């Protein structure tokens, strides 16, 4: 456990800064993704700030509809979960300003906290009463359970290798050079985790959850207005938080804020590049994919830790 070295008010200040920053960065990444995807497809693409436009447009809608109280709580859970997740992960190694609230829990806490948002999302969407929302949620849950297996294996492998579940310690264990990154010291775990990341990001080819046209964009079918905006910002920070987590687990964390930005970007783009070239998997295909090679890699990683 690393006790906070800052007193409460500066801590809160830096927390607000990093959360706002993360949302901003997440939205920008979203814009970059759209731009990059457009370029890949030979288009010009929207401006990089397009996500901001969309976000504010949504906020500025003049009417809104809601279905019940869970309909409120869905986005609340989603956004709070995403922000909370971000706050549980130390962003910059050794910098108390960007340590956030990571003294609250370790890697296990982070792992489980990820579901907080998904759960809220699912509940809120289900309250909407739209069958397609629920169809999408079932797909999402199926896929989620599947990619969690390789991810769990990777986490176990790393925790076993480090001898701790503390993210701080995991990062600390990777200091001292690129060669110390778990990406290289436990490449099998990294393979498992990064394959799992594809599913975690719900980006093509694992985007059957959202499947526009078939089930109108999935869970948030009924969402609009401020609900929608909370979700959008939640999604933005969630993506960043996941990347920060992967950075801490495999890429040796970050010692400067710049390194964090760069590493997060590259981790995020791993899934974008894959998504750009692969078509969508069906749910059962996705599930079986994750239970196949990624899981094998994870098991191998764990066995490797056990044996060596």
């Amino acid at each position: 456990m690393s006790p906070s070295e800052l007193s409460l008010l500066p801590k809160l200040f830096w927390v607000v800064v990093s959360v706002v920053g993360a949302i901003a960065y997440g939205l920008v990444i979203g814009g970059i993704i759209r731009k990059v995807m457009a370029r890949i497809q030979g288009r010009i693409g929207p401006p990089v700030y397009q996500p901001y436009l969309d976000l504010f447009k949504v906020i500025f809608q003049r009417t809104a509809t809601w279905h019940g109280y869970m309909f409120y709580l869905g986005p609340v859970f989603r956004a709070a979960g995403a922000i909370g997740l971000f706050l549980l992960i130390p962003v910059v190694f050794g910098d108390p300003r960007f340590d956030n609230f990571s003294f609250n829990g370790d890697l296990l806490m982070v792992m489980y906290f990820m579901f907080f948002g998904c759960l809220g999302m699912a509940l809120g969407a289900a309250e909407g009463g739209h069958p397609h929302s629920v169809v999408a949620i079932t797909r999402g849950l199926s896929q989620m359970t599947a990619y969690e297996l390789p991810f769990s294996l990777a986490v176990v492998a790393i925790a076993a290798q480090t001898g701790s579940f503390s993210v701080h310690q995991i990062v600390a264990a990777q200091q001292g050079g690129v060669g110390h990154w778990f990406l290289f010291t436990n490449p099998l775990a990294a393979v498992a985790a990064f394959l799992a990341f594809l599913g975690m990001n719900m980006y093509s080819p694992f985007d059957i959850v959202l499947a526009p046209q078939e089930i109108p964009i999935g869970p948030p079918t009924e969402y609009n207005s401020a609900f929608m905006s909370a979700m959008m910002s939640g999604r933005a920070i969630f993506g960043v938080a996941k990347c920060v987590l992967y950075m801490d687990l495999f890429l040796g964390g970050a010692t400067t804020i710049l390194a964090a930005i760069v590493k997060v970007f590259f981790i995020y783009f791993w899934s974008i590049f894959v998504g750009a070239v692969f078509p969508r998997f069906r749910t059962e295909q996705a599930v079986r994919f994750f239970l196949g090679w990624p899981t094998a890699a994870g098991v191998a990683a764990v066995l490797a830790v056990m044996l060596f």
Partner: protein
Amino acid sequence: MVDPILLIAVPLGIAFLLPLVDRLGRAASRWVHFLTLVFYTGAAASWALALHKGTVAAKDIITASWPPPVGINLHMGLAEAVILSLAGITGICAALYLVPREEKPSIRSIVLQVLLLAGTAGLTLTRDIFNMFVFLEITSISTFAIVLLGKEKKALEAGFKYMILGGIASVLLLLGIAFLYKTTGTLNMADMAAKLPALFTGGAAAALVFLFVCMVIELKGFPLNGPAIDLYEGVEPGVMALIVGTTLNAVLFAFWKILPLFGGAAWEGVIMTSGMATFVLGNLFATRQKKVRRMLGYSSSAQVGLLVFMLPLLRNHVVTLAALGLLLLNHTLAKASLLWFTGIHEEEEIGGWRGAFANNPLLRILFGASVLAIAGLPPFPGFWGKWYALAGMARSPYAWWILPLLLGSLLEFVYYFRWLKESARGVEPARSEVVPFSLSAPPAIFTAIGLVLGIRALYGPALGVSSQAWLWMWAGGILLAAAFLPERVQAGLSFLAVLLGSILLYSSGALALHTLSGFFTSLVVIGALVFSLARLGIPALHRNYHGLFLLLAGSLLIVLKTDSLLGFFAGWELMTWTSYFLVRQGKKGPAASYLYILFSGAAGFLVLGGLMTAVAGGAVTISGLGALRGNTALWAWILLAAGLAVKVGSWGAHIWAPESYSEAPDVFTPFLSGVISKIPVFAFLAVAAKIALPGVTTTLGTLDPAWVLGWIGGLTAFGMTLLAVFQDDMKKLLAYSSLGQVGYIVLGFAMMSSLGWTAALYHSLNHLLFKGLLFVTIAGVIYRTGTRSLSDLGGLITRMPFSFFAVLIGIITLSGVPPLSGFAGKWLLYQAGIQKGWYLLTALAMFASILAFPYLFKLIHSIFLGQLKREHREIREAPKAVVLSQWILIAGIMLLSVAPGTVLVPIQEAVKAFFGKAAFTTATATELATDLGYFHAMGVMSMVVVLAVIVLAGILFFLPKHTTKVKQLDIVYSGEVPPPPEEIQYAQNFFRPFERAYSPVLLPRVKAFWKSFSESVLSLAEAGRRLYTGDGQTYILYALGVVLFLVLFIFPAPASSSSKAPGGKTGYIVPVPRKARPAEVGVQAPRPGILPGGKAK
């Protein structure tokens, strides 16, 4: 004291006079009959009591003033007195019972009954082998005649076959006596036994074979029991009850008396094998039997086989007389009662028993109690008998015999509880049966005797049944007796009792969390309190519910508090049957509870096996288990672990649980899942831990059984969770979920580390809270909507918001998502796994815990979210009591969420006592840290709450002024007007793609395995029972075959030789040297003879 000879002489004399008395009228003869029986019973019982208390010594009686072996002598000891008291009571009850049952009343039937008792007395008391023959014939002939008392169609046929075989038996006996007399020159049993070794010849060897086969026939041993079983099927059951209570025991005792003649180890083996074969095969064949009385016949044969099996053990002082006596008593009491029941409800086929005694609660209770008694469950005498017998065996070289014994006992469960299952109330209106007093009184008397004896045994100080437990159980008993009260009143009383009991437990300090038993007692108390509170809102389906519930709670307290292994197992079995009856009260409960009791029985026997292994190692108390070492410790541990695995429904043995959980009464299920499933865990902890912990190596070669158990736990967690995803029945879904959760607990315990145990204990409490919450809420939903099917519901959030909130809290806790309390359990478990080095298992557990999300979502969505069905638009919130209990549980969860340390710190203390090592490096109420990780509960909770408030505020701030709550069906539907809610609620095939993805592992292999297993057992039984062809001559051929088999293969005596050499295969081997023989029941040592060769008189 009455001279015991009068037990023979008086009935004989009266019998001779009865035809004359009858001239005064039938009433007169009935009175004479009754008085004779009263005299008989009183005399025998006064002997039994006096001998038991030790105020008189056992008495030898000589007749015609000639001491043995010149004259015939009799002996009155405790065993004789008990058998005769039993015979007397049976005689009275049977007389009462038979009065209305006789087709054409005749004085002769009374005479026959009296003579049967006189014969029983003679057979029991006599110590002369030929005299034994005479009395055997008296009982046989009276049996032959009296079996025609009722409807004679089948009885004639059965009786004739029985007679022919009986004739063969008496011929064999006579032949045996002849050769024995030729060999020893005496007829007195003791004399004969004393002389036989020295004078042994081939003829004597043959004689012993003849004697033995005769006894096999008379005692209905395999395979010569065909006609006897026919008799059970064909004859008036009242008569059979009479025979069971009188002749059967006497013949058994006669066999005991001539047992010293069979001296050798070879004979011992033959007798024990024969008895055990009869026991196991009889029970096996009974499983296939659809005719109730015939089934009882097989059962009788089996039970007597068991007793026969134990005779050599008794002789070798392996088994005490008390144990055997209790078994015999139990068999008589229970079997006679059951036979009487088959007479009251005269349906031949088991299928006709549906709704038997439906409008007669007393008879139903008695019937159930009789089945419990015959199955050897506490508090009935059979339980104690079996335990003492097994304990004796365990300490002896005969320990391996326990295995088939337990197997046979399990088979007994199979058919007796199937009977109970079939006799459950059906949907069709029950037939009204008016049962006259004289028919219902006998079983009532017998059950009462059994109960009184059993409860007295339960009061034994060595069992350590605390007064608290007694308080609960007596409250339950009183409530059971007061079942006529209105349901509401009963529920209130029951709640008050639980409240009072809990307060008493609390004030006596029994709820201290830092001890294991205190911790689990707290679980029981929480469960009992909350769920009986919820029960106030949801009426029980059945009037016996409340009493049984208190009994169950009491039995749990026994298990938790006792230090004696016997007390522990008694509590365990009490728990088994009380919960069985509670499960049975559900609508489809009978079928589900049948599986429940079968697997619980199996688990019980596994535990018993484990305990017996411990007993073999010299342990008597739980705290003494720590002294076990080596293989004893290992096997005790393994057996106990296996019992635990079955009882908690681990993967492979789980098929019983979903049905039981889902079919049990809705408000009982939370108790079943939250509390009862923890008791095996406690048992394992309290018992197994002591064995394995103190530095005992418990590995089978390189294989660590704990590791195996860990994998079982992990696979259970995984497999059950996966199966839960596909359930449509919400209770079944939660049932699978419970199994999976208990899988984690098992995994935690298997780790055998302080962290693992802490995790498991914490998860036990947590599971009680959240699964109780879920089940209680679901019960409320079911109560309001009347359906358990998820696809019938939807959108209830608007109608039942409190219930929704409760389920929401429940599923978040279950999923282990922070900030609620479920997380801490998962957190501990994974760290324990990593610490232990079980990495793959840890990952599997993680995966399993995430697999829970789909079903949790399914649960909450299908009930509360989505579209409200039209028929549910007027549904009200669950009853107030249910909501209140929900809030109590939610409060508990919240406390644990914010401050898990309040519970974890005491748990750490409890676990430290075993491992000497603290689980945590830091542990305060809100903050925990181990070597591996850390977790600040309060911090996470406050972070989440603050963030949620901020986000909510943001949303509210940014929402437009005009925000409309749309109506239910205003959803995006491609511009269409949506069809009715029933059609657009997504509930069918909920996780179809998921199912497709996992299809290879979803094949019902386990079910198929158990199905084929049970089918093969049944077909084995089917094949086996073809042995009983129904042809009288075949049976005789069998008898001959057995004689020849024994002669040719077991005792290939060179018949012509008159070798006197002891030893060798045919020789006469001196029985195992015995210590001082307390409570002498055996044959007297030969008195100083008056014969040539002996000392002069």
